[in-house]
């Protein structure tokens, strides 16, 4: 329950970065952004919005409309939470890999997010994980315990695949932005990584 909730939570917050929205609209936008690979029901959306409101990350925006639907907007804490999510890597140990795909899908459609920074942050995070697995291999020695060593290899190759996919994403984003001078992948306001480039 923990990890899907975390992804829905951050997914909805990222969508609200575009402006106030109500639950039905958020569900449709989430499905559109992620290609409906992870369809949400509207109950999940409203439950999540309730918790986000309880946590002070969103607030109701004005009165309910004629159909009784309530729009939500991000609070300052909500904006900070979105920036923090995009600025930090997904941990391979604690989250489903889907969260990363969803994060990138939202990054390319959310205004003001530096997608290349998101990609690099993740690549560094995944590389750190890959280094940890490789250190475990070093310690395991060369062929002393074949079974353990093969399990470690599976983790190593999975992390490597993620990095290769990130390389691919980076090339695609760079190509897309070369074709369109004005688009969403230009600069991240809240990224010190961008300043270092």
């Amino acid at each position: 329950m923990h990890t899907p909730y975390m992804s829905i939570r951050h997914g909805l917050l990222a969508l609200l970065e575009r402006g106030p929205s109500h639950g039905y609209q958020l569900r449709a936008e989430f499905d559109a952004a992620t290609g409906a690979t992870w369809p949400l029901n509207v109950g999940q959306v409203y439950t999540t919005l309730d918790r986000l409101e309880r946590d002070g990350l969103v607030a109701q925006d004005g009165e309910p409309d004629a159909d009784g639907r309530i729009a939500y907007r991000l609070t300052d804490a909500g904006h900070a939470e979105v920036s923090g999510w995009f600025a930090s890597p997904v941990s391979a140990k604690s989250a489903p890999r889907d969260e990363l795909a969803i994060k990138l899908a939202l990054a390319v459609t959310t205004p003001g997010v530096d997608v290349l920074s998101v990609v690099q942050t993740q690549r560094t995070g995944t590389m750190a994980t890959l280094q940890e697995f490789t250190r475990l291999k070093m310690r395991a020695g060369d062929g002393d315990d074949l079974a353990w060593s093969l399990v470690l290899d599976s983790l190593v190759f999975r992390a490597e695949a993620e990095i290769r996919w990130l390389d691919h994403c980076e090339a695609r984003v760079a190509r897309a932005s070369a074709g369109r001078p004005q688009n969403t992948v230009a600069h991240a306001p809240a990224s010190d990584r961008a300043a270092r480039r």
Partner: protein
Amino acid sequence: MSDPMLLLSGVTREHRQGDSVVHALRGVDLAVHAGELVAVMGPSGSGKSTLLHVAGGLDTPTAGAVLVEGRDLAQLSAAQVAAVRRRSIGYVFQDLNLLPSLTALENVSLPLELDGSRGGLARRAARDALEEVGVGHLAGRFPDDMSGGQQQRVAIARALVGPRRLLLADEPTGALDSATGEEVLRVLRARCEAGAAGVLVTHEARHAAWADRVVFLRDGVVVDQSGPVAGADSLLATGGGV
């Protein structure tokens, strides 16, 4: 910490192509200490091979300084730079590392003999270096009679023979299958833990992960670094190389 074995400080390398200027490297800072293996990762055209050439005194930066064992290469004569290359720096490339008409032992002792060592001393040092990478028994073999992995071990031995302590490797496992490549990286890593300083240029994340630190290069700029990972010490039985 002691002085780094290799220090790049604000290194920029420009190439002129007609009227335009191509920046192969832009303001790169990098320090590599004894006992440390640093990987440089980046796509083709990111400047990683230029970085290795500049670090090894094979190319000269347009701006910035390159120090090998504390000596600023720009302050040395061409002959002195050549001496630094012979005595301090060893290279390992993807292939074509060894002279085919010489045995493993002769390949490894050659740089020492070119530097003026007597034959007996050079051969003894070469034999030690071959033992250290686990191919002492192949001393009398010619490169064509060795596997790719064995040849790369001999190349590592030659890179670190005698007083040499800085190893610059450009895709050293590129021509090998993954299991053999891993054995070569294990040897590279072990030589660094034994006191050498290594720079490993690669576009393969799995290979870069053998390093203590991974430097990400994009368009000639260091955009990020990975490791040493917080908490990773607890995963390490030995503190070598950290």
